[in-house]
């Protein structure tokens, strides 16, 4: 069942890619996106079938020591396929209208191909096949980022992205080869059944973690992320951030957890601390941005950090033998990932709508869009609410569960595990607080207030299909919070095979709409009931006002010191975030300079390039040292060759 659905899904994407070549450009692209909707729906069916009915597996022997290459979909992979399908369908729907499609028909083909490549990663049973599709996905990722010809900065963004991606792939390959040394097979199942000696396993763990982390955008290897997403067309950015990004978490779950198995305590601690730092740093830099797209991209780093927090807690609990904590951490991580996929795609589509209306994403030039495009502003608010973790949204449910998971740190036997849990919890609390501030700033300066520039006359006439796509995503994001018990049951079933049994049974209190963090009598909360109670609470003050108010008041002009127009005297996004910039000046290290009596201050994210700069310095240092033997003299080089030949011959003789 799931196998057939999966095959048809791939077929739909392939047909979609081919359809882009049909004669009429507009119609061909529309047919292409209809096929991607179809493929997405089939992917949803595949995922659901794999979680509830069991997956499928088939394989062929490739020979040459690579081993069997197979497609094998288990419940975990099924969950990722489901997530990819659910988020991609509305994004494809959004892309259906010619106005939001990319400038060339190749866009539709690339769009379909990257979806197919992503799905193939989730079913690859063989490390070799996995890496192959991973690279295919990376190349398509690059082409989508660098797609728009006239968009500023997209070339540089594309190059940085592909360079970072190469680094990540190299690290992952190294990790796979380390395991291959021992297992002699590239099939994940056989790799998992061989236990590696401690040092080797740890080396493989760290290499793979950093390699996958590059794609996830974790600190300090996130350099490419804030540049790449804003450079891509909006629907491509939504697809990349919402669907493709998840391969990184799949990689960590599949390789670092499933293949490498239970590890020492410090693996979990490493993941936990990297996640905590990513969450805090991501949102801190996000707040300092004045570009809407960049802010949304930085928020991806924050959320990648939160997912890593869950995974880290899971690994820590696993190594300490705490099955419920291990299961809880994994479940929360997957839940948060799903929430982030839906909300982030929604926001990127919103950014696209804003850009369509105004031609810019500079928050200091926007404003007042709520009146010009009411529907988009409401849908954007749903996404912003969700990502800011405001109740009763999905973000609130997942962030609450993440915090509760980290609070279970006291159950760990060792102090070395407890302290990072507490530290990570406090950094997560900081990050979610700052996220609220960041989204207040974004929504306030883009949608509220008065317009700061001229907008298109038909700003509110966004195409029907694109509005429908955004509405679907908003509905999905809202359902993740309101219907939390259902989703937790699904994720519990999907993640059951990895570290512990189905943990979701332990997460329901009485009545079962109430959630608890796997351990009873610790804390309990119900996002579902909250979604009912909070609107009711809103009714109370409205009722009081309705009863008490005597007059309807008087509407006057906005007071602008007697001027006719506000003329840029409003609170700017920069002004709103300036207190944060001041308080965290020691972190931001702003570059201040006075040139010809003009004072400027810029925030250059030193943390972004620090990792790469250090690596580049090391490389340059080595090459400088190597320069000693590079004389440029031909005879010298011939002598080297001769020496090497001698060494090889000696080695052969000794053997």
């Amino acid at each position: 069942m799931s196998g057939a659905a999966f095959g048809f899904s791939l077929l739909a994407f392939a047909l979609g890619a081919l359809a882009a070549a049909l004669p009429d450009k507009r119609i061909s692209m529309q047919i292409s996106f209809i096929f991607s909707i179809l493929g997405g729906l089939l992917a949803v069916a595949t995922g659901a079938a794999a979680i509830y009915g069991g997956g499928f597996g088939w394989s062929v022997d490739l020979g040459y020591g690579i081993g069997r290459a197979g497609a094998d979909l288990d419940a975990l992979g099924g969950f990722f396929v489901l997530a990819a399908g659910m988020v991609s369908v509305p994004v494809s729907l959004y892309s259906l209208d010619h106005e939001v499609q990319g400038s060339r028909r190749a866009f539709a083909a690339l769009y379909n191909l990257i979806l197919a490549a992503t799905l193939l990663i989730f079913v690859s049973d063989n490390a070799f096949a996995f890496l192959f599709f991973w690279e295919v996905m990376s190349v398509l990722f690059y082409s989508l980022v660098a797609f728009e010809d006239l968009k500023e900065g997209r070339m540089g963004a594309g190059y940085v992205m592909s360079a970072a991606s190469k680094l990540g792939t190299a690290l992952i390959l190294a990790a796979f080869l380390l395991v291959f040394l021992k297992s002699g097979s590239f099939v994940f199942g056989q790799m998992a059944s061989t236990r590696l000696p401690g040092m080797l396993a740890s080396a493989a763990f760290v290499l793979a973690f950093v390699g996958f982390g590059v794609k996830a955008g974790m600190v300090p290897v996130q350099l490419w992320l804030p540049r790449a997403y804003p450079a891509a067309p909006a629907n491509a950015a939504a697809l990349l951030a919402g669907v493709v990004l998840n391969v990184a978490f799949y990689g960590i779950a599949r390789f670092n957890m499933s293949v490498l198995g239970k590890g020492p305590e410090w693996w979990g601690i490493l993941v936990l601390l990297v996640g905590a730092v990513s969450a805090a740093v991501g949102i801190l830099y996000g707040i300092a941005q004045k570009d809407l797209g960049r802010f949304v991209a930085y928020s991806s780093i924050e959320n990648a950090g939160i997912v890593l927090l869950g995974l880290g807690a899971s690994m820590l609990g696993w190594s300490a033998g705490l099955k419920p904590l291990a299961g809880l951490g994994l479940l929360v991580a997957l839940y948060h990932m799903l929430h982030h996929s839906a909300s982030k795609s929604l926001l990127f589509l919103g950014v696209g709508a804003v850009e369509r209306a105004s031609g810019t994403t500079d928050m200091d030039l926007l404003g007042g869009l709520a009146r010009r495009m009411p529907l988009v502003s409401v849908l954007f608010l749903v996404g912003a609410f969700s990502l800011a973790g405001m109740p009763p949204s999905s973000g609130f449910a997942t962030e609450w569960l993440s915090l509760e998971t980290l609070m279970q740190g006291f159950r760990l036997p060792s102090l070395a595990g407890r302290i990072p849990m507490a530290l990570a919890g406090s950094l997560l609390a900081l990050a979610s607080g700052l996220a609220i501030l960041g989204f207040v700033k974004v929504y306030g300066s883009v949608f509220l207030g008065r317009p700061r520039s001229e907008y298109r006359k038909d700003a509110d006439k966004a195409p029907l299909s694109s509005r429908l796509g955004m509405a679907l995503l908003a509905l999905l994001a809202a359902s993740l919070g309101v219907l939390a018990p259902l989703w937790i049951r699904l994720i519990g079933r999907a993640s059951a095979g990895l570290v512990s049994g189905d943990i979701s049974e332990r997460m329901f209190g009485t009545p079962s709409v109430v959630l608890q963090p796997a351990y009873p009598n610790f804390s309990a909360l119900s996002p579902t009931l909250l979604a009912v109670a909070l609107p009711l609470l809103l009714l109370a003050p409205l009722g009081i006002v309705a009863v008490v108010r005597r007059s309807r008041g008087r509407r006057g002009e906005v007071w602008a010191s007697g001027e006719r127009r506000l003329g840029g005297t409003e609170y700017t996004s920069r002004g709103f975030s300036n207190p944060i910039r001041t308080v965290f000046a020691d972190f931001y290290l702003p570059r201040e300079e006075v040139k010809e009596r003009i004072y400027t201050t810029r925030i250059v994210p030193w943390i972004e390039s620090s990792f790469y700069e250090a690596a580049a310095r090391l490389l340059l240092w080595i090459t400088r040292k190597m320069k000693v033997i590079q004389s440029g003299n031909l005879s010298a080089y011939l002598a080297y060759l001769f020496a090497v030949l001698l060494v090889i011959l000696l080695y052969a003789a000794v053997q």
Partner: protein
Amino acid sequence: MDEARAIGTLEERVKAFGRSLHVRHVDAGSCGACESEIQALQNPYYDLHRVGLFFTPSPRHADLLLVTGPVTRAMERPLRAAYEAMPEPKIVIAACGPACGGGIYGRSYATLGGVDRVLPVDVYVPGSPPPPLSLLHGILLALGRMEQKIEHTQHTTGAGR
């Protein structure tokens, strides 16, 4: 813009204020002399805070609009806007000779000749400039906390002859 009209009599409006009042000063083309006198109100000698009076920079917080100058044409609209921006109830005082009726500027191509051509004035404080104590007297008069010193009288030459 609609014709600005006061709602209710001065006594009715004043009742709401209690013992504290915030004043917004608008310079509608004054020569600058009145401003010096108004500044002097805040010094320790006159110390208008002791009677519960405060200046505020925004009409949104003000109960009383203190207007100086003959109302130049350029200032007509901002003056109306400031009055519109004030919450009800509100009082208007024309402070200085030109504000009361044009003064030496009179009514010309550049000036409207008095605040009452734009806004409903409650109290006129004459003098060019009015000394601080006159200004204080005018404000307290509006609040009903002091008596009016000069009544309107009419003298006709040759009457009773």
